[in-house]
């Protein structure tokens, strides 16, 4: 029973962490170019944003939950479940980041989630 908790953690903390990192990066603003000085400045600025650290912490929690789930279940079962995070990510993008997800993008997201599931079903 408590194993559902692991899967919930993988999807919710993983996607939530990425959303927090996205929030931080949107606040930092677009990188002006690929000059090392530009990149260093953007990273230094991002590391001062609390959302960044919250995001990294959540991604770390999801990573350990993934390791835990993998020690109990087969990869071919665990990873298709995590394909749910593509749909969760798009929902988070709309609600938390105020991105406008068009019907085209929704279609693409669903196709990717189906494709990732097939890839892992076909792994063994």
């Amino acid at each position, binding site marked *: 029973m408590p194993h559902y908790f692991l899967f919930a953690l993988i999807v919710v903390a993983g996607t939530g962490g990425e959303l927090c990192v996205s929030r931080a*990066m949107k606040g930092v603003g677009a990188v002006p170019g690929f000059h090392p000085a530009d990149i260093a400045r953007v990273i230094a600025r991002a590391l001062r944003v609390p959302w960044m650290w919250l995001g990294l912490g959540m991604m770390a929690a999801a990573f350990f939950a993934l390791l835990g789930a993998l020690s109990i279940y087969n990869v071919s079962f665990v990873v298709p479940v995590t394909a749910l995070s593509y749909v969760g990510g798009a929902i988070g993008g709309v609600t938390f980041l105020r991105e406008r997800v068009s019907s085209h993008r929704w279609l693409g997201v*669903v196709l990717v989630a189906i494709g990732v599931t097939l890839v892992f079903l076909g792994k063994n």
Partner: protein
Amino acid sequence: MEREPLAGPPEALGRKTLESPPPAPQKHFHLQTYLLIALMAIAGPLGNVLLGKGMKGLGELSVWPLSDLLHTGLKILASGSVWLGIASLIAFFVAYMLALSLADYSFVQPASSIAYGVVALLGHLMLGERVSPLRWAGIAVICLGVFVVSLTNPRTTEQV
């Protein structure tokens, strides 16, 4: 060279204006986003493979008693593959951060799943791995999905 006396109001003299560079034109930002996603799709899987290869090459690892843990730690740090893997994963994360500074999360996340195709292709071509038809089908569906996502505008929000 002499400084011109009283060239302007005194408070303006000592202050250098910190102007941010002009925003990159639309075309540039599209190209940069695609480049970063391509880098993510290569560096991420490469880092995972190198890390896995490095760890497997170390054989059985013991973490108890504590002297064994220290020994294990040193063995891991002595592995070249592990360091290359870590460097690769750092490159992946930097590319990810920069991509998110340019484009939507709901664009970058599905688009970066093209990495599944990269992994299968690299495994097939370089390691001679057998890729099952179902897996190829999945990769084809992913590529189709990424193509559909790439038809949308990468950025739909203004800077916060």
